[in-house]
């Protein structure tokens, strides 16, 4: 029996769900493996009461999201968090800084009250346990297909732990630091095929802090190069506001 899959969107730009539809060549093959029970973006229908795999996109920004996730955890045997929003809080978590009410009034003024149950943005795993993570803003389609396939087989997630530089080297890029620019690749979890750096744009850290990364040393080295490390930390927080290591 094909595993029953639901796709759930929390606070996000839907970019990762769009990305899921962007595997055009493979979309039908992937769909052939699963029994897709709920995907609001692509199909009418109701969220079923029972299913096997939940794919969750987006950050947690309302009490309703928390309730949804708790239901999901109680039901699904595997939860896959996709995208920076769900995995590290991503861009939505920028709003977790400072007072939420101030942000609210900046955007909505003092008219009728909307956005009920609002809370500071969080990553999915701060609410429930997550079995598989696909980081990145947006997710890499190839990685999505591979992780989904691993999840369906019940295998470990194989999330890479090292920083981006190794794969960047295999692409034969000249390191940004040689040109006096800052690149967060040295701290960021690999797995994106070094796409941005190969296209001439320094890594902005959307895949989160690599477990292997040596933050202390990196900051010391940048400092030695005359780079303002507090500015580097601000940059690193762009997609990683919730990463404690970047808060100092």
């Amino acid at each position: 029996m094909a595993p029953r899959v639901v796709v759930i969107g929390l606070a996000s730009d839907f970019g990762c769900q769009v990305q899921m539809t962007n595997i055009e060549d493979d979309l039908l093959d992937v769909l052939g493996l699963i029994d897709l029970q709920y995907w609001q973006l692509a199909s009418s229908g109701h969220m079923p009461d029972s299913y096997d795999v939940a794919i969750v996109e987006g950050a947690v920004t309302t009490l309703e999201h928390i309730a949804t996730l708790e239901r999901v955890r109680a039901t699904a045997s595997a939860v896959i968090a996709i995208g920076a929003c769900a995995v590290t809080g991503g861009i939505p978590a920028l709003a977790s800084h400072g007072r939420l009410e101030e942000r609210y009034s900046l955007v909505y003024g003092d008219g009728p009250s909307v956005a009920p149950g609002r809370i500071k943005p969080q990553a999915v795993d701060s609410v429930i346990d997550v079995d598989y993570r696909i980081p990145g803003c947006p997710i890499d389609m190839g990685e999505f297909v591979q992780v989904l396939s691993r999840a369906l087989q019940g295998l470990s997630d194989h999330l890479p732990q090292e920083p981006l530089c190794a794969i960047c080297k295999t692409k034969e890029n000249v390191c940004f630091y040689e040109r006096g620019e800052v690149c967060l690749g040295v701290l960021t979890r690999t797995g994106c095929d070094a796409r941005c750096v190969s296209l001439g744009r320094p890594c902005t850290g959307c895949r989160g802090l690599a477990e292997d990364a040596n933050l202390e040393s990196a900051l010391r080295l940048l400092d030695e190069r005359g780079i303002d490390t507090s500015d580097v930390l601000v940059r690193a927080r762009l997609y990683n506001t919730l990463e404690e290591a970047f808060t100092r």
Partner: protein
Amino acid sequence: MSTLTVEHVARIEGHGTITVDVDAGAVQSVHLDIVEPARYFESMVVGRRLEDAPLITSRICGICSPNHMLTSIKALESALGLEVSERTQVMRKLLVYGSFLQNHATHLYLFAAPDYVGLPSVFPLAETHPDVVDRALRIKKLGNDLTTLVGGRSVHPVTAVIGGFTSEPDPRRLEAFRDTLIATVRDAVATVDLFSAFEEFEVHTDGEMLALTAGDDYAIYDGEIAALRAGWRRPVSEYRDIITERVIGHSNAKHSTVGGEPLMVGALPRINLNAAALSPEAARALEKSPITVGSRNAFFNNLSQAIELIDALERCAGYIDRLLEMGGSTQVEKFDIAAGRGAGATEAPRGTLYHSYEVDATGIIRAGDVITPTAQNLANLEADMWKFAPTVVDRPRPEFLMAIERLVRAYDPCLSCSVH
């Protein structure tokens, strides 16, 4: 009285709920509640470096991220007084069209089409009408490939930055791509035929229609704001004086008005305002289609998108020719940080998108504002729903609700955009 709801309307981008109150066979009220969570983007950019703004605000929407990115970049360039090269401008237009092709194909085939054939999604069509699904995926992929070719990635392109592009597509690939674009015009024409053949509802929308115009170009990247009924043209920098946003109690998205009345943006207003600039094949398709220029049937927004597909393909082929002819490569223009404010607009697939920022002398953003197309459309959409619901209320309930959903979908709303 009974209250009917469609929670989390499917096949649209974002979360919205339709509520209709019906009493003794008469529609009492119709609402579209945008339950998409608030994300406070305008507050997020405050205090960040200006280079971060395009990265941040493009995360408002994953479907039209190229538009958000470019609109943000344009607004910042206007604040900095920075001019970019013609090459950069052409490449940016290709990027916008990539998002048009991708979005229109997704909207038309994956979101809208199932309604016309009474299916919950497009997936069952894969078995019964594989040719149609293949065509849909082909156009969609072409859009993604175009964005990827120019921007490095289809969702959240990476190469577009303030001042230009960090990388250039390989001319050989551009050339090959040009041929694919031309070859796909056939698919786009078939799309127009398909949607022309569908039996369509009718609702006469009353709102003003706005779109960018730029002389005899089909404006999507630059130009002025034009109003269809009022007939005026005004510069983008005045957008905040033109469009008024208001918080509505039942929705996390604001509603917009122009001169006190609701407004519509998107493919239909664009065609109404710029039909004369359509590419030859697109103009022919418009001619044959049930749409007449100036049409106020909001449902025709779908068909208008289909016509825009043809236009996009032909136009992009021309842009690629232009790039190849120009030769050389884009350089990222250097700029000095200076205090300033600036606004920018582009046509996103579902209508005009505005960004504006205020930057201080150290390059830190002090204020930001974004008005998305869907936020502009919502008031008008709700007005259309009030008008349309009574005309179909005598149908069986599921069919009645489906008809209203269909109207919502015709606007191709992007609800996550609308709450940003």
